[in-house]
């Protein structure tokens, strides 16, 4: 197991370095430099500013310097937020995104599992279609519309919840609902399929033949086995949610990473682009690894040492 994880980490590092390099060069393909928007700059000043940040060096030199700094753990400083460390910026932004993401994940997963189970147990019944329509509705309405409507009705009209800001649990409710709607839909549909699959398995018949009650069969034998594959979709989902959604963050004024990331791309804030990209990739790769390890722990059939048996 240790050896397996070691091997995985090495291949992760390689993937990571390739992502870092490709992103670096792609970024360099974006026209313009970070300093062409500073309206009143003279040509000389732009040259000077570019010099200051080493942007006039040939790209390979810049690449070399960047990678050198990267490997020593230095992500550089932001161009737009003058002089602030990229790592500090990511650090202060990740908190709200991660909190919101995880909360939405938990809420969404619970509801999604519940809906998926109901739909599968009542396969092809009205309840099945109804549940699926609810699940699908969650992803059917653009989430900025959902968010806007919620903000208006719950925040302004009925004044039940705070309109926006990031200031305690009450403030997380609406954004959580808006984000969780996607999770609910994804998980519910996936769970339904898996449940149907498991319900058709022989061991379910064995369990029934033991005389277990339907509830016991569903809880002890079906749900557990149906949930295991969910872990595989959890990986990307976790990363997607943790890294924030631009739209929700903007509408509910949440100082999260999603907004920062999109804006960094649109403002050519190279160090932030690189920093966030690398952060995302690491998070992604690590989460995938964790998911695999978790899978091995939860599903006794999979032994890590030999991969899938």
């Amino acid at each position, binding site marked *: 197991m240790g050896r397996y994880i070691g091997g995985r980490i090495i291949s992760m590092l390689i*993937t*990571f370095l*390739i*992502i870092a390099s*490709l*992103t670096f060069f*792609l*970024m360099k*393909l*974006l*026209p313009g430099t970070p300093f062409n928007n500073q309206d009143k700059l003279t040509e000389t000043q732009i040259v000077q500013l570019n010099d200051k940040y080493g942007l006039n060096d040939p790209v390979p030199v810049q690449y070399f310097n960047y990678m050198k700094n990267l490997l020593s753990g230095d992500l550089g400083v932001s161009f737009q937020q003058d002089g602030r460390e990229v790592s500090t910026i990511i650090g202060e932004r990740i908190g709200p995104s991660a909190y919101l993401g995880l909360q939405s994940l938990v809420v969404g997963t619970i509801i999604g599992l519940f809906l998926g189970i109901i739909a599968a147990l009542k396969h*092809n019944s009205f309840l099945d*279609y109804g549940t*699926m*329509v609810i699940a*699908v*509705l969650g*992803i*059917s*309405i*653009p989430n*900025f*519309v959902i968010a*806007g*409507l919620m903000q*208006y009705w719950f925040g302004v009209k009925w004044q039940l919840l705070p309109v926006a800001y990031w200031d305690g649990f009450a403030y997380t409710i609406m954004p959580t609902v808006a984000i969780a709607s996607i999770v609910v839909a994804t998980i519910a*549909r996936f769970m339904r*399929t898996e449940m149907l*699959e498991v319900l*058709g398995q022989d061991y379910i018949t064995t369990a029934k033949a033991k005389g277990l009650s339907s509830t016991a069969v569903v809880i002890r034998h079906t749900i557990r086995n149906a949930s295991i594959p969910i872990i595989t979709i959890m990986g990307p989902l976790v990363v997607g949610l943790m890294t924030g959604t*631009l*739209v929700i963050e903007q509408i509910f004024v949440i100082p999260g990473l999603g907004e920062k*990331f*999109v804006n960094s*791309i*649109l403002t050519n804030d190279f160090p932030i*682009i690189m920093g*966030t*990209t690398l952060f*995302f*990739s690491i998070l*992604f*790769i690590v989460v995938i690894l964790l998911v695999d390890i978790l899978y091995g722990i939860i599903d006794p059939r999979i032994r890590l040492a030999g991969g899938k048996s």
Partner: protein
Amino acid sequence: MSMKQEKLHDLSDDMFQPAKIDSSENEQIARESTGFWKDAWRRLKKNPGAITGLIIIVAIILLAIFGPGMNEHSYSEQELTRAKLPAKVPVLENIDFLGVNGVDIRGTDQYEAKGYEDEYFWFGTDEFGRDQWTRVWQGTRISLFIAAAAAFIDFVIGVAYGGISAYYGGRVDNILQRIIEVLVGIPNLILIILFILIFEPGIFSIILALSVTGWIGMSRIVRGQVLKLKSQEFVLASRTLGATSGRVIGKHLIPNVLGQIIITTMFTIPSAIFFEAFLSFIGLGLRPPEASLGSIINNGFRSLQIYPHLVLWPSIIISLIMIAFNLLGDGLRDAFDPKLRK
């Protein structure tokens, strides 16, 4: 043992003559011939959700094709004097609760106020005074076109990539899968901006942008399926007959993965529409006055509280598209699932 013994004596001797059994009848198949697709279709027909989805999709496609031509307005014709009129539909205008009588949410008949008493705008007009009906359906057309084109490209690349990866396996598979890992890691917004720069904004760039990483999901599905299929005996049989790789892929693998591919496509289309809407939200994308459902919603979104018709109609349509494709996709999944075959 139900039949009474005595009754048995009444049978005529003639009945005990040897019967002429046509030996070929032994092999007769009573049921009508059903191919896989016919069978799936039959199952699909019994799924009310999927059929509802299908009907909605067909209806929306028809409206997207014919809707913009159903009145005399064009999607780009501006007339500021009639900006932001609410919806007004002949006949239905008399039914108050439908809210299509030209009266805005503050109770003013805008048509009267702006001097357009004799005109009807079925979905109202936007801030430029353009007919919202025409624009919404034009937008639907563009959204669907973008989604369909993106789905098509995803299909082509995804199927080829996943197919090759799984079919050749081993080292090839390994390398191709690593490439995907890297691709997933690169933020595609950077790539999208690059496309928009290189090709200028517009439908083409968006389609390309959507396709940059969109095909990965498809390729994963296809890869998984092909991996499963390629060791199936009918594939081996074909190989022992000397079939070329092309033939094995084209005749055996693809047709069997097709069900999965179609299902995946059903889910690609709505997500492409959504991604396009996201691009509109961050301001990237189409070249005005071209509009997609996403950009129309995004434009109208801020007037939600005062001109709800600007966001209501396109939202309903985009939601219907999503629901319909998802229902149909789920339905197809059930219909194609061989485990449910009897």
